[in-house]
């Protein structure tokens, strides 16, 4: 227990520094390199007529802010899902949560065009809940359906289904291009209003996750133990799923679908800090933010001067890790 404390405090102490370094690189370098001094001036003494200041204020800072938030949100959402379902493959992108959100957003673009941003975020959350609901509902209907491997299969297939239907609807109403702006990761064109709105929604999710952290730790030990300790398992599940929905809904509304962050980061975090979710959740947030920011910086340089979608970078790390998890754990239940 002591060691866990030290490691997690070390992580929480080191990540702000690491994140600052990555953030600085992210803000300073790009298609146009801008000196640290100019960056500083753009922040403290903004001059609207200076193009560099404009780039920093309207382009680079929103971008890094969005990436850091989304990284933290997805990592925490994944950690909560893995803990609560005791399923080592649970994660927003595998369980149809991302696709559900994108599905509802497509419907909104088709049937209620021009909705204000905050309503889009709410709809995105509704969609996350819908996706998760269908996947878990279906999983609990069939025999052994909640086992890690089966649930992952069901999640992927239902996710594909939802996004196929969304594509068909978008085609039929001829709004594919508008929808594709939502669908595809769009870190380089973050909407500032959306970003400001995402912060409170995401914070609600983070707070809910932190509040249920203790209960998640107990649940992750097993249903029987949780019941024996007098835990209201249903209430815990509802609150923590609410946190997941808030976090992923906001993340998708902000930058689109990004896979593997929510799968990989919680595993790395658990490896570092152990099984206590009071430490896992904040550490996952910090590591997730750092990881996604790093991917974002790299995404500008892999194919310079063209930008590579950030999803390609997360897949480079995520796919081998996913294969490793399957190889190591197979169908066993554990978180």
């Amino acid at each position, binding site marked *: 227990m002591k060691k866990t404390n030290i490691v997690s405090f070390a992580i929480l102490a080191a990540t702000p520094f690491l994140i600052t370094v990555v953030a600085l690189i992210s803000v300073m370098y790009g298609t146009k390199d801008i000196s640290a001094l100019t960056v500083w001036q753009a922040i403290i003494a903004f001059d609207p007529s200076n193009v560099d200041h404009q780039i920093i204020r309207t382009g680079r800072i929103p971008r890094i802010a969005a990436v850091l938030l989304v990284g933290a949100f997805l990592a925490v959402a994944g950690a909560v899902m893995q803990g609560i379902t005791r399923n080592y493959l649970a994660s927003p992108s595998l369980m149809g949560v991302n696709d559900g959100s994108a599905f509802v957003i497509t419907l909104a673009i088709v049937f209620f065009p021009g909705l204000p941003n905050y309503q889009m975020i709410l709809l995105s959350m509704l969609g996350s809940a819908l996706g998760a609901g269908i996947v878990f509902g279906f999983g609990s209907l069939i025999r052994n359906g909640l086992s890690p491997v089966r649930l992952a299969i069901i999640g992927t297939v239902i996710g594909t289904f939802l996004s196929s239907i969304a594509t068909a609807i978008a085609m039929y109403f001829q709004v594919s291009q508008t929808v594709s702006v939502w669908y595809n990761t769009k870190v380089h064109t973050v909407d500032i209003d959306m970003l400001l709105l995402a912060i409170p929604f995401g914070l609600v999710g983070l707070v809910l996750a932190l509040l249920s952290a203790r209960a998640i730790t107990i649940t992750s030990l097993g249903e029987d133990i949780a019941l024996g300790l007098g835990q209201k398992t249903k209430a815990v599940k509802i609150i923590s799923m609410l946190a997941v929905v808030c976090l992923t809904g906001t993340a998708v509304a902000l930058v689109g679908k990004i896979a593997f962050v929510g799968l990989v980061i919680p595993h790395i975090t658990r490896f570092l800090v152990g099984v206590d979710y009071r430490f896992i959740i904040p550490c996952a947030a910090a590591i997730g933010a750092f990881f996604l920011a790093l991917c974002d910086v790299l995404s500008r340089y892999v194919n310079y001067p063209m930008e590579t979608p950030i999803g390609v970078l997360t897949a480079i790390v995520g796919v081998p890790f*996913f294969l490793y998890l*399957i190889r190591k754990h197979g169908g066993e239940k554990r978180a």
Partner: protein
Amino acid sequence: MHKNTSRVFVLTISILILFILGASYLHITNGVFDMSVIDVVKTLLRIEPNPKFDLVIFEFRLPRIVIAALVGIGLGMAGVVLQGITRNGLADPGILGINAGAGAAVVIFMFFFQLNIVTADLNSWLSILMMPMFGFVGGAMAAALIFSFALKNGHLDMQRLILTGIAINSGFGALTLFLSLKMNAQDYESAAVWMAGSIYNANWIFVAAMLPWLIILGFYVYRKSYLLDYFQLEEDSITSLGIAVEKEKIKLLLASVGLVSACVSVSGSIGFIGLMAPHIAKQLVGIQHRYVMPASALIGACLLVIADFIGKTVFAPSELAVGIVVSIIGIPYFLYLLVKSKA
């Protein structure tokens, strides 16, 4: 009993062919430019040739129908082989990631040879003929990866097989996306159209590119389909029959990868046909693979021609990629099979 089965088989095959002809008829007469049956028949039989009809039928609609049918045949047969080898009804080239592997290889090919398949003409016929070969290398690599990860104590673990497929799918998907973004705008467009799993840029060169693969490998897997019956038995009993199980499995697997690659290289990734067709075939003609194989091929053709017809007409004037139509039909079926299958 045996005689009865073969009679059912002949009947099923005949009905399927009628279905395919019916679907092709709908496909050829409907579209942005509607034609009457008489016009179509006249054009096909070269009575009073009319250049306008000739163009629509021979350059646009007929190659598209032929490709839809051929891709359906290829995927239907590959599905039977994969389900037979893995002894699992949820196997499908798309789900296992073979499509994605072949697809990535084809995009690599397009990237290095600057091949634009949308405006493909006779000058590039050689490159088009080579596309299935590249696809084959990629598909075989994906298959090797999938099987090496899914082997557990020398046995195939089906759930791992599907999960590895999911991983391979997203890995090759990311690679394909990355490469396609490095292409110049025109090549990118052609790669994007192709990746969506579509056949609306069909032409006769594609037919020529995939036909030899389908004929040779199709004939091979049909000849070997009796082996798939044996594979349903316990491992020990097959070995005692004097069959080199592993060797035959690998040969059949490679043949099905070849079939899939030929399909993928002309139509992009189309999933779930290889899943649905064998199941429907088994319900119609029983479990003997020498009957299942041709029935599944024809069902695949039928499904794909119908799906392409739906994608083209329901969403007019825009066209929905046939791959998406197939997923929308195929996924509920997959879930139904998942519910039915024993855990």
